[in-house]
């Protein structure tokens, strides 16, 4: 994902950096920002066309120790991009096309900052790449499902992660000035991969022939002008004099063809204001209890309080306070926070609290309006993306279904996304759960059959029952039924159905055992089990490209003291272990 094309020349003018990477103390990362606070992006809207201009503040790195030259990026730059792309969907219902361009004259984007990468720990690199991947997938999702088509208007060098950003757009325009180029120099200059979807999208999305892709991905200077068009690396080129018109025309055309749904006024995304301490994180609808001794986080998602409105007028009035959106945003922020800042808390236990009826109202709102109202449609897709984040989270996910919980329909997805499901039979005879009047119940609804697909294109139920399609037919007959543990178990929805006597102990042992295993092996195992069946570009990016990249990241040929990533910019050549593995 990183690029070096232009940085290669730049490093000649800056002091050679140390052989030993400097790992700065990593700050607690917050993913909450807003356009007024952006340092690196400008968001402007003109009618139905928005422009996102990348103009990175060189001194604005999220961690000290590097300068973000040539529009190179780090996690902080990408957090702003994520915020901007999300706000475009909720705060700009009028926008139907988004032009991504550069505010720097000679560089569109030089990709991820290499010094940042060279100085980063392995988990930081991995998390960073995962998040940038998710943001780029989100851009494609906006094009496909929100009628906001992204167009890359590339002026200047577009290298590595810069070109991968362009690849996430629906259309790539390249200025034809005999110097601007697109390139993927990671392999040749850094000994790593274009890991933010680059290799995958070149062949899979743009249909570049594999031999030409091979040439392209090993040619650090990249490809310019008409050749880039001929190889399908970009869609069109335009000379400088026609450039503005060409970009405008493409944007207008995309806006005209947009499937953006109608609806009411924009919905402002008010800031999330969690309380974060060492042992707990509290939002309004989501809480997390951090147990540092057992390395477990218990995430509780609260259902709506009171009735969920089902008429659009009231839904718009609530806006960002409408429970499904508020809850989804909080959960999204929590997942990002924990993933980045709490690396050692390796098991996430999911619980829910609330009235299943309220959650089922969410279900009905989606069913009724998500095909006609932009706002409801956005909520559905936002929640879908939050769930997808969970799917690719390198933590053990365990759903614990107790009396007083509301794993119904959309919320059942949290349990289905988990690696295991534990459900209590009946009530606890004593203890805190005993006050509840009714045994725990779960509800399967229509939305579990496809409203929130995974990156493999299947529903989570479809993934779960990939080997037993008959179970899906049986489940369809149970849509809407309140299933107690014994029934849910019989239908294959639970890993373990436990009575009150075994409950606490079984869960303690399971989580303790989990915490004792190799975190790496668990991550690998879970990633393999979670994604059955067909591949998509997205699943290939996470399952194949990322896995290879993460392997390369820990190999001496990249990350060793003599490896390409560490040697880059020192004037010394990398020394490779020549054995092919």
């Amino acid at each position, binding site marked *: 994902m990183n690029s070096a094309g232009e940085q290669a020349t730049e490093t000649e003018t800056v002091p050679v950096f140390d052989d030993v990477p400097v790992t700065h103390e990593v700050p607690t990362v917050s993913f909450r920002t807003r356009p007024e606070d952006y340092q690196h992006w400008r968001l402007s809207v003109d009618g139905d066309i928005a422009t996102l201009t990348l103009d990175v503040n060189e001194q604005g790195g999220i961690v000290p120790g590097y300068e973000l030259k040539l529009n190179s990026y780090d996690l902080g730059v990408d957090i702003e991009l994520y915020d901007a792309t999300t706000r475009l969907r909720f705060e700009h219902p009028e926008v139907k096309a988004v032009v991504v361009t550069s505010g720097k004259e000679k560089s569109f984007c030089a990709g991820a900052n290499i010094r940042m990468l060279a100085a980063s720990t392995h988990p930081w690199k991995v998390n960073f790449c995962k998040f940038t991947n998710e943001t780029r997938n989100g851009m494609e999702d906006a094009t496909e499902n929100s009628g906001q088509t992204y167009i890359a208007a590339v002026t200047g060098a577009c290298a590595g992660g810069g070109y991968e950003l362009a690849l996430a757009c629906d259309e790539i325009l390249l200025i034809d000035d005999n110097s601007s180029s697109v390139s993927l120099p990671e392999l040749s200059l850094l000994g790593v991969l274009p890991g933010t979807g680059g290799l995958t999208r070149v062949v899979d999305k743009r249909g570049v022939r594999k031999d030409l892709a091979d040439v392209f991905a090993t040619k650090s200077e990249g490809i310019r002008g008409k050749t880039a068009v001929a190889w399908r690396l970009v869609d069109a080129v335009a000379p400088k004099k026609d450039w503005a018109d060409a970009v405008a025309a493409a944007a207008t055309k995309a806006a005209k063809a947009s499937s953006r749904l109608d609806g009411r006024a924009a919905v402002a995304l008010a800031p999330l204001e969690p309380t974060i301490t060492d042992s707990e994180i509290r939002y309004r609808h989501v809480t997390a209890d951090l147990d540092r001794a057992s390395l477990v986080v218990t995430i509780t998602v609260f259902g709506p309080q009171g009735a969920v409105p089902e008429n659009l007028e009231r839904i718009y009035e609530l806006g960002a306070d409408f429970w499904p959106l508020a809850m989804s945003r909080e959960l999204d922020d929590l997942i990002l926070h924990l993933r980045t800042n709490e690396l050692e808390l390796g098991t996430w236990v999911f619980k829910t609290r609330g009235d299943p009826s309220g959650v089922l109202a969410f279900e009905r709102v989606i069913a009724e309006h998500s095909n006609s109202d932009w706002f409801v449609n956005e909520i559905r897709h936002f929640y879908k993306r939050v769930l997808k984040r969970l799917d690719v989270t390198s933590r053990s996910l365990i759903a614990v279904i107790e009396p007083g919980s509301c794993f119904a329909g959309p919320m059942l997805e949290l349990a289905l996304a988990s690696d295991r499901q534990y459900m209590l039979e009946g009530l606890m005879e004593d203890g805190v759960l005993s006050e509840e009047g009714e045994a725990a119940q779960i509800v399967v609804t229509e939305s579990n059959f496809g409203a929130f697909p995974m990156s493999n294109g299947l529903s989570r139920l479809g993934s779960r029952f990939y080997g037993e399609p008959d179970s899906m037919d049986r489940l369809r007959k149970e849509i809407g039924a309140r299933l107690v543990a014994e029934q849910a178990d019989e239908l294959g929805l639970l890993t373990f159905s436990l009575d009150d006597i075994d409950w606490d102990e*079984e869960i*303690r042992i399971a989580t303790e055992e989990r*915490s*004792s295993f190799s975190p790496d092996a668990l991550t690998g195992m879970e990633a393999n089990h979670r994604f059955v069946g067909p591949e998509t570009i997205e699943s290939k990016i996470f399952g194949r490209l990322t896995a290879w990249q993460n392997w390369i990241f820990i190999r001496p040929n990249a990350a060793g003291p003599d490896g390409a990533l560490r040697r880059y910019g020192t004037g010394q050549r990398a020394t490779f272990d020549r054995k092919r593995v």
Partner: protein
Amino acid sequence: MSQSIDYSERIPNNVDLAGDRRLQRALEAWQPAFLNWWAEMGPTLDTSDVYLRTAVAVGREGWAHFDHVALPEYRWGVFLSERDEERKIAFGDGKGQPVWQQVPGEYRAELQRLIVIQGDTEPASVEQQRRLGLTAPSLYDLRNLFQVNVEEGRHLWAMVYLLQAYFGREGRDEADALLIRNSGSEDSPRILGAFNEETPDWLSFFMFTYFTDRDGKYQLGTLKESAFDPLSRTCEFMLKEEAHHMFVGTTGIDRVVKRSTELMREHQTEEIAPHGGIALNVIQKYINFHFSVSLDLFGSETSTNAANYFTAGLKGRWQETRRKDDHLLSDDHSEIEAMVDGQVSSQEVPSLLALNHDLRTEYVADCQSGVKRWNKVLEDAGLEARLFLPHVGFNRHVGLFSSSKISPSGEVLTDDQWAARESSWLPTPEDKTHVQSLMQPVYERGKIANWIAPPNQGINGQPFEYEYVHLA
């Protein structure tokens, strides 16, 4: 202070069964299954009652009382030694930390496996010995057999308690399976091979209680050191009962040897079979067999499993706390006997890998003490002959000697040499048939079979003539 056992319960215990719903439910469901198992697989001889020792407390003094009890009404229950609040882990990575009162999830699978294997041997021996009552040489011996049986039954309870109290659903399933597997069953045999052989006669029974139960004693001794405190306390109390089983074996063989010397003297011959006795060379063959089979129960001399158990704190060494080393063994080395270039020799291995060998060495030394006793009987009778333990490599089917043929004196043999001499070292069908022929029941008070001497004293101060068992 002794913790008393609550006899007001259906299941006597000192684990606060009344306050533990989970345990109550599990044990109350398991108890009828146990009683069924006892009825089907327990002693075949019908008795109306037996003079038995029953545990009543777990403290140092007065832990048991004696009375005539109908076997099915024996108060099987759950007893752990008293808890030492200060107890710390004595070895391995966790050395010095407080012991565990709960199963750490990390070691659930390993601890469960250890307990299941131990638990599986307890009912197995009852099954192996179920028909011995039909041929008891005296009421005294019959009583001892039943004492061993009910206590093995209680040891099963002890392991079942641990499984049910600490291992959740899987633990309950494993507890059920302990009653489903049966010694010698085709479809569902006991886990360890040695426990699938029927104990065919009383000489074998004494040998079994001497050698094989002694293996059990040493295994329990290692589990007594466990960082998992409930397991440690359970095993500590079991060891107390196990001592009686050793006693039955030791004195049983004493009395057989004694009777044989009497018959030899009386008839002035070593060939006492025609006179209704068991010749010394047959006793030696039985020793050879039972000793070697019991050595196999220690597993391979070098074992990474044992090393892992030690490092994790699950299973210590015999008398771990009395050992004068660092209790970590990470850099230590030990000499073990092994086959090197076709010869019996020794080799140096990391001590952590040699823990089975270490335990077996303790065991062999302990076995030696019995041999000394029996030889004292021979010496006192003015006989030259002596009994001995065969070489540790003799007749082994597990471990470093399993692919070699080694004589009782430690010579390495070819297959042909072995085949030629095997019958002089291990019981032959004729030997077994003869021993079997001697097994005629003697149920009259104060009477005893011809092949064995009466004991020096009775049980709990009662005379030999005491009516220890009332037959049905």
